[in-house]
Structures are given as C-alpha cells and as structure tokens.
C-alpha cells in the first residue's frame, strides 16, 4: 500500500473514474426505456436500431468515433481547467478561433516544391494543427489573464469571448475567406493540410483519433507526472495552501487556461482538417464545447474517464437520429438518457459533497 505506484495506481484511478458513470449509464437506459414505453414503442426495437447505428457495422462504428473525437478534446479541455479550479465555459469560442486559424494556414500556406507528398503533408498538417492550438491557447489566455490579474470571473469573461469569437469568425469569413463554391463556407484547405480519412473503410474516421488519444495521455502526464501539474492541482484544490507553498496562483491560472485552450484549439483544428476541410458560416455555437462540460463531468475529470465519456456521448449523438428514423422513437428520448446520466453522475458528486460535510461536522463535534 505504502509503495503503491505505477501500474496498480493507474488501474485504481481508472476503476475509480469509470464505476459511477457506468452505473449512471445503466440507470439512464432504464429511464429511457420507461419513456420509450410511454411513447408506445418497443424498447427492444429502439435499442436495436440504436445499436445498429452506433456499432452495427465497421462503417457505423467509424462514424461514431468521428463524433467522439472532438468530444475527447473538449472534455479534456474542460477537465484540465477544472483541475486548477477554473470553469472554462469558453471552449466554444476557443474551438472557433482555432478553426479559423487552421483554415487560414491550411489554405494559404504553400508547401515548397520538390518536397515529397508524404513529407509535405506531415509538415502542412502539423503547421495547421499548431496554428489552431496556438489560437485556442491565446483565446483562453485572455480569459486567464483577466481572471488572474483583474479578478474578472472566468465564467463571465469566457462566455463573452465566445460571442466575440462567433462574430469574429463570421466577419473574417465574409470579408476575407469566402470560397467560390457557395455562400456559407470558406475556401477548402489544401490536400496536404487534410488529415487522412478512412481508418475504417467507408467511414470518415480520420487520424485525429490518434491525436486525441495522445492528447489524453499527455494531459495525464502533465497533471500527475510533472511539477507544473502538481502546482495546477494544488491551486485547484487549495489556493491558500498553494500560495503558502510559494506557488503563484495567478501564473497557474493563466497556464491552466492556456493549456485548456490549446486542447479546445486542437478540437477545432482536428475537426476542420479531418472532417469539414473548411470553415462554415455559423450563426450559433456547434455545441462541442458545452458537451465537453458534460463529458468532463461524467468522466470525473480524469483523462481515461473523459475518453470513455466522450465515446458514450458520441454514441448517443450518432444513435439518436437513427433511432428516430428506424424505430419511430423520438430522439428526445436520447436527450432524456443523456440528461439522466449527467444527473446521476452529478448527484454522485452532490452525495459525496454531503458525505464529506457530514464527516467534517462529526469530526468537529466529536
């Protein structure tokens, strides 16, 4: 016990991270069943249609993973910020500015002649990804700096920045990036800047999946294996003790926000280079950032939990419409299942909070 480390610790953390969400999902499905019955449909038919859509064929599973990838990034972004005690509600905006940056680099930067296609692709994709990551990190840093040095609450200022990003994107698109093909989207990125699709035959599953998995591993390394991660966690758990120990709270707020924004940026850049290949006119937020909050919550702010939670939400997102089409069950049932899962995971948090409080008061009065 005393020397518990390495593998056993990882396994322990992982089991801890997934047990409650798995239970919550089961409860969610039971509640969903009740509503399907109320709607007068067959739950078996509905869930069969759902399962078909999510994993009925290699292609279907590939598409489920396509929906999962951005959620992994945004879930990681929210959970990393949360580890430092910050609520990054600005993932949406960071996602958008990253898409713009990735498109600009993907479209405008030309690879030198004579480079082999493989190498040109590698360079160009890397450059475009970096641009997106940097843009996301920059956008989030504004929120971090405002919080750390001006005391502007990050929830407020990052929501504001979401709208700035939304309309900035709209303006840039209409003023500079308009493509020839249609009204609502930018020029496409060059072939060298696109992430390869077709990891699973017939699906759009792209190499962004590997980037997402590596990102999750890197987040785990940063948080639990580096001194900077130690500081971020210390600030998140106890700002007073962090300050006492000579850890700069302000500096770590900015750092955590920037890292969180970098992950949001990766979400946007990977989605653009892997799936969309261009920037679409948006009048409302796409929602990956907000879903990221739910993913982080269900994944208990642990990278492994986030991956699994993203898979769950990706499947729900992909399976809902199909269930409606094939079994005639309103896809609102899927939102009920989603809501129930979130509710039960959150309720577990509330329950734990109450238990801690009870223990505390008992200790106090003992």
């Amino acid at each position, binding site marked *: 016990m005393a020397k518990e480390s390495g593998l056993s610790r990882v396994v322990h953390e992982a089991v801890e991270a997934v047990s409650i969400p798995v239970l919550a999902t089961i409860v969610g499905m039971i509640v969903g069943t009740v509503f399907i019955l109320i709607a007068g449909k067959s739950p078996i038919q509905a869930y069969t249609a759902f399962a078909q859509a999510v994993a009925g064929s290699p292609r279907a599973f590939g598409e489920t993973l396509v929906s999962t990838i951005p959620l992994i990034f945004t879930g990681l972004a929210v959970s990393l910020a949360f580890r430092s005690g910050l609520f990054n509600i600005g993932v949406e905006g960071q996602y958008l500015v990253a898409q713009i940056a990735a498109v600009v680099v993907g479209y405008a930067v030309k690879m030198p002649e004579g480079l082999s296609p493989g190498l040109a692709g590698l360079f160009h994709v890397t450059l475009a990804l970096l641009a997106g990551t940097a843009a996301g990190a920059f956008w989030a840093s504004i929120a971090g700096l405002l919080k750390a040095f001006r005391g502007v609450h990050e929830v407020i200022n990052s929501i504001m920045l979401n709208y700035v990003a939304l309309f900035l994107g709209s303006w840039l698109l209409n003023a500079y990036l308009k493509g020839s093909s249609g009204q609502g989207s930018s020029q496409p990125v060059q072939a060298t800047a696109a992430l390869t699709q077709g990891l699973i035959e017939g699906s759009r599953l792209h190499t962004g999946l590997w980037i997402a998995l590596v990102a999750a591993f890197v987040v785990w390394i940063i948080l639990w294996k580096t*001194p900077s991660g130690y500081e971020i966690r*210390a600030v998140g*758990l106890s700002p*007073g*003790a962090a300050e*006492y*120990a*000579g850890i700069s709270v302000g500096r770590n707020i900015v750092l955590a926000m920037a890292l969180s924004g970098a992950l949001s940026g990766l979400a946007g850049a990977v989605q653009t280079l892997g799936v969309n290949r261009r920037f679409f006119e948006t009048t409302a937020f796409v929602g990956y950032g907000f879903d990221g909050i739910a993913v982080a919550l269900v994944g208990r702010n642990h990278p492994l939990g986030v991956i699994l939670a993203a898979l769950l939400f990706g499947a729900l997102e992909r399976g809902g419409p199909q269930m409606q089409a094939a079994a005639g069950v309103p896809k609102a049932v899927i939102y009920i299942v989603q809501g129930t899962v979130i509710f039960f995971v959150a309720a577990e948090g509330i329950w734990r909070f109450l238990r801690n409080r009870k223990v505390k008061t008992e*200790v106090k009065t003992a």
Partner: protein
Amino acid sequence: MKGGTTVPPFTHNMLKLNGITKRFGSLVANDSIDLEVRQGEIHALLGENGAGKSTLMNILYGLYTPDEGTIEWKGKPVRIDGPGHAIALGIGMVHQHFMLIPVFSVAENIVLGMEPGGAVLDMKQANERVREISNQFGLEVDPEDKIESISVGQQQRVEILKALYRGAELLILDEPTAVLTPQEVVELGKIMKSLVAQGRTIIIITHKLKEVLHLADRVSVIRRGRKITTVEAQGRTEAELANLMVGREVELKVDKQEATPGASVLEVSHLSAKNDRGLLALKDVSFQVRAGEIVGIAGVDGNGQSELIACMTGLRKPAGGTVRVNGKDLTARSPKEVREAGVGHIPEDRQRRGLVLDFSISENAALGDHRKFTRYGFLNYGKMADLAERIVKAFDVRPPEPEYMARALSGGNQQKVIVGREIMRDPDLMLAVQPTRGLDVGAIEFIHRRLVEERDNGKAVLLVSLELDEVMNLADRILVMYKGQIVAEVAGQEATEENLGLMMAGGGARG
C-alpha cells in the same frame, strides 16, 4: 423561571446517564458511559480531542440519538428529541463557536425566537428582561450594545444569558475558555460560581487541566469513548489529571537548558502593515531573533500577530519597514523567495494554508519543495513517499501511511505532518504560529520537544501563540503584542501569567 429549588445542593442527581453508547460506523464515540451530575455543582468533562466529550454532550442536547443507554433528568427517564426539547427541559448549551447575529443588539440576540410582546416586538420589555437576568447573575452587559462592538468575553456572556433567558437549569459550556484572555477566564470563573450559588448546574467541557482545578467541583475523565473515573477536583494536581486523561505519564513542562543564543538570524525593523480592511494593524514593530533561541509573541488574538507573520512570509506586502533573514533583505518578497532563504513556517491555519487536504501525505510532504522532487523533469513519487515515510515515523503520524489523504487525518495528525515537513526542511528560522492549537496534551508535549530541539540545534524560532502556557513554557524571551505594537519584552523565566495577562490587555505599555 427562577431555578431556585428547595433541594440543598450536592445531594440530588440532576442528571444521570446510564450506559450511553454512540457509534459512527465502526467508530465507537461513546462506550457505555455512566455519568451523574449533581444539582448545583460545576462538573468538568475532561478528555483529549476526539475522546467523545462533545458527542456525549450533543446527545444530551438532543443533537444525536444514543444507540444504547438511557438519560434520567431530575429522576425521570427522558428521550431528548432535539435541542428544542432539551431547552424545554431546562438544558442549555453554549457552543465553542458563538451563534450570534453581529448586527443585532445584545437583547435582540437573547430574545431571538422567544420575543416578548405579541405580533409587535416589545424591545423595551426585552431590554428590561435582559437587564434583570444579567443583574441577577452578575453577567454585566448592556442590552442595547451591538454584538459586533463588544468583546469576545462579553459575547460569551450573551450566549450564557441566552440560555438563562430560556430557563436553563443545566448549562453545558463547550470549551468556554478557548477564546478568552486570562483576565476573562477569571471573570468567567466568577460568573460560574454565581450561577451555581443560585441553583444552576454547570457542565464544562475542556481539555485544559488548569481550568478544571480552578473551576470544577468534580471531574469526569473521558478517554477514547470510555469514562475512566469521576473524582473530586479538590486536592488533585495537573499531572495527575493529565495522566488520567492520556493514560500514561505526561511531562507538562518541557525540560530545557538555558538558551545559548548566537548570531542574529531574523531582524525586523520598523515594520508596519495594513489588515484586510485597510486599517493599520501593525505599527512600527522592531525586534530580532537569534540563532539558538525561542522568542515568543504573546497577545490576544487580532492584535497584529497574523499581519506580522504574513509580512515575514511574503503573504502580505508591508506598508513600511524591513525584514531581514541572515542579512538578506526579504521585505515584500514572494513566499517562494522567503522559503528558499531558509525560513520554515508552521502556519496558523493548517487546513487552509498548511496542507492540500485532497493530496496524500506524500504529496503534502513535498509541498513547497515539490520542484526538487523530480527525475528527468518528471515528479518522483518514490522520493516523496520516502520523505513522507520519514516524517510519519519521526513524528508519529497515525495512521503511518504515506498514501493516506491528508483530509482523512485527525487535526493533530495533520499538524504533525506540517510540523514534520517544516522541520525536515531544516530551516534557519522557524516561524511557528499556534503550533499546537486544538491538540491534546500528548501531541503538545511532542511538538514542544521538537521545537526546543530545533533551538538546541542552533536554529532561530519565533513562536506566536494565544496560549500563555505555551509561550511561557517554550520561550526564552517573550514579546507582548497589543494593538499592533510590541508593548513589552520579558525574559522567559520572569514571566508570570498575571503580568503577561495585564500587558496583553494593554495595561503595561512601555513608552
């Protein structure tokens, strides 16, 4: 609601507890406790932290239901459902942390919930009633004063009056002296005598031996959930009670040699600082601490001690003056620079400052020096665990598990982790603020010994404490702080509780 009865005191049992048992999960907080409290006595409940005193009293006050056992109140068995029921029976409790509304007047607080008059609050009558009771028992307060404008000692009187107003015949006082100056403790003693003289009965919960001897008629000692014995207080000694309480021989006074101070380590000159409200809380303070001596700062809470320490540790920017350690100017430097200059700090608030409660003991052992616990730039948990292992062994942290979460430790063990970490860092200057607050005799003895050891190893120690005994016991020199200034310096051997207490209350200002 006169409590006077015709029963002569010291004969009848007011209260009798039979075989009270209370479990929290696997923890047995009270293990079949029998207790008899006589009408008109002051009965002390003595025990270490976590011994089960408060649990027992919370059962009596209706906050917990016992798992086993019965309560007899004035000869009749009762089941106490809640505080409301306890009050109706005539049992009143004064909690350690007062439950008063600061912006209300004294009388408003006292009558709260039982206001005189019908639909309209009759404040005149309330004031009158409060004055009456306060005269009857010699509890001097002005009913029209606001709570926020009166002293802590007076606030306590308001709490006692509140219970009396509700007709309490038995008063339970939970650690009543924790927040009082020595003079206020004497005052409280007089009030308690006056209460029992008029037929009231008092149970006082405490872990302070001196109080028991001064105040109580009889003492019941609780150890690990069991009642060990009930004895007459008359004729007992502190050592005797300490041994009963801890269950082994305890040294109350640290055995220490004469100090042999060396070169000056800490030099504070003309230091001034503002408090959180922007008022000058520290005014032109100058002193020094030399290697191999313990300098104690005595004072009532809130007289600038917190601001002084915050300025020295980089947690607050001074308004003026300088702080030097080993000749190095550390004025207004960051906490990190201060730590690196060889300053150890046992903070006043162990839960908010001293530990990250949701870190393990290992991770907390590295707190502050965490950048040194790396291998190839990555955290080295093995190295942290090694240090934690050493701290846990040397400082007797229970349970001795480095991977245990700090939150799960008791207050005393949390404190041992902090003291251990700071001593292991081997600083030239140790700032020990309230190092034994809330700890019991055994743990206090241990931490005191370690601080004296630090001194004997040639370190400079600055001790800030609200406990006079602690300062007098450890310090070679004592500085008294009052209203943000150092008003006196006394040699350790010459200090008495009386002269320090007087100076702490502003009575002996120098210059």
